């Protein structure tokens, strides 16, 4: 049952990622990325990271991608052809390297079959993550607030007219 869920999420993620690559219009690519994020949310829940799964939807899918969508719509972007490598030697080299990567992945999956993700109570509940974040990792947490402030200032200054 769990394997069926994992396979459906994983296949959705990979097919949607391929769509991000194949689609010509950036809007369609952004929507395909939305599907990837949804599938990854499912994978996070399977791994027991409940807090991160929901935070991923809120931040990545609900804020970052909406920002992408706004920019694409406001700038009225057109569809474009992808760039193909003109030198034929690299196009010929791509196939064996892709096969090599595929062989490595198959080897990884076959040989390390007996290392399962431990089942049991999940460790990614909000309380645990919050406690870690505010005790052990308090300094990085405060620094990220400064990072976000700098990003906001930077975006406002850069995109201002005149």
């Amino acid at each position, binding site marked *: 049952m769990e394997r069926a869920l994992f396979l459906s999420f994983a296949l959705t993620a990979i097919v949607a990622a391929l769509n991000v690559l194949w689609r010509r219009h950036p809007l369609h690519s952004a929507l395909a990325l939305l599907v990837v994020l949804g599938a990854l949310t499912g994978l996070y829940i399977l791994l027991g990271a409940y807090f991160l799964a*929901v935070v991923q939807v809120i931040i990545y899918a609900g804020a970052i991608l909406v920002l992408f969508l706004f920019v694409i719509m406001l700038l009225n972007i057109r569809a474009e052809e992808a760039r193909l490598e003109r030198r034929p030697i690299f196009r010929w080299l791509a196939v064996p390297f892709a096969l090599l990567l595929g062989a490595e992945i198959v080897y990884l999956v076959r040989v390390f079959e007996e290392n399962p993700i431990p089942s049991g109570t999940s460790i990614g509940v*909000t309380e645990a993550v919050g406690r870690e974040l505010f005790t052990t990792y308090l300094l990085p947490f405060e620094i990220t607030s400064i990072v976000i402030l700098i990003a906001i200032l930077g975006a406002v200054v850069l995109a201002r007219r005149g």
Partner: protein
Amino acid sequence: MDVVVEAVVKIVVVFGIVLTFLAYLALFERKILGWIQLRYGPNRVGPWGLLQPLADLLKFLFKEDVRPMTPNPLLFSVAPILSLVPALMTYAVIPFGDRIELFGREIALYITSVNVGLLYLFALSGLGVYGIVLAGWASNSKYSLLGGLRSAAQLISYELTLTLSVVGVLIQAGSLDLVEIVRAQSGTYFGLIPKWHVFWYQPLGFLLFFIAAVAETNRVPFDLPEAETELVAGYHTEYSATKFAMFYVAEYANILAVSALATTLFLGGWNGPGVERMPLLGVFYFAAKTAIFLFIYIWLRATLPRFRYDQLMRFGWKVLLPLAFANIVLSSAMAVIA
């Protein structure tokens, strides 16, 4: 296996009740608007107009589905679904009542109790933006695009206040699980005032939540993006028949979900006198409290004029957001003191 059957039955029951109620909510809105405006609402179809939703449903099903000439027909068809599905998914975590004994087993009157329930609801409201933005884009019309972008900007602005106003409730209840939040509001102070969050110590949070919720659901006085006199009909100008019905239902589903959420977070959910002995009474209390919010929504629509768009944005960012932050600071201080 038992768990799956129980969940499926609960989902079917909840969806049946909710969808029927949403159809009648449209009728009640028209009736109540009529009464406030000193006229009868629809009263021709069936006694007291009670068959009006059925007539509307048949009209929507048989109407011609007009499609604009758009380079994105798939997006055009998918956008209403993207708006409707997150609105309906919110009912999976809302607690309608406590656990009851039925057919010899203990059944909880909520579909599921997720330990990140409140964050799940915010994730869904974030996803609701996509339906609107894509509808505006795929309609290939300037009114739709402007209405869609304005509506989406309004949604993401007020989503901040909505989320922050609830943090006070979290601090007080100590859990993200909606069932736990309702349980934390059982009992009374001095035997008289119920321990609901709206009385102590979240009246400001409640006010902020409700105002932000009215803005989130695109209702008067925040409905400029879909007002008829401004932008024809905003992002759903080009939609007709079934797709428009989906947007329509999605809007009412959002209103009902937000009212149920306000009841759960601030008004004690299913709590009320005598719920410990008879848990089914909890459903009645929950329905009554939600009905109060629905009435306030309709009342607001009948009485208030609408904000201009820049007034709306200024109000959201310069008034509500600082108040939401102040509410968090106050709640934290109260949690330490009390």
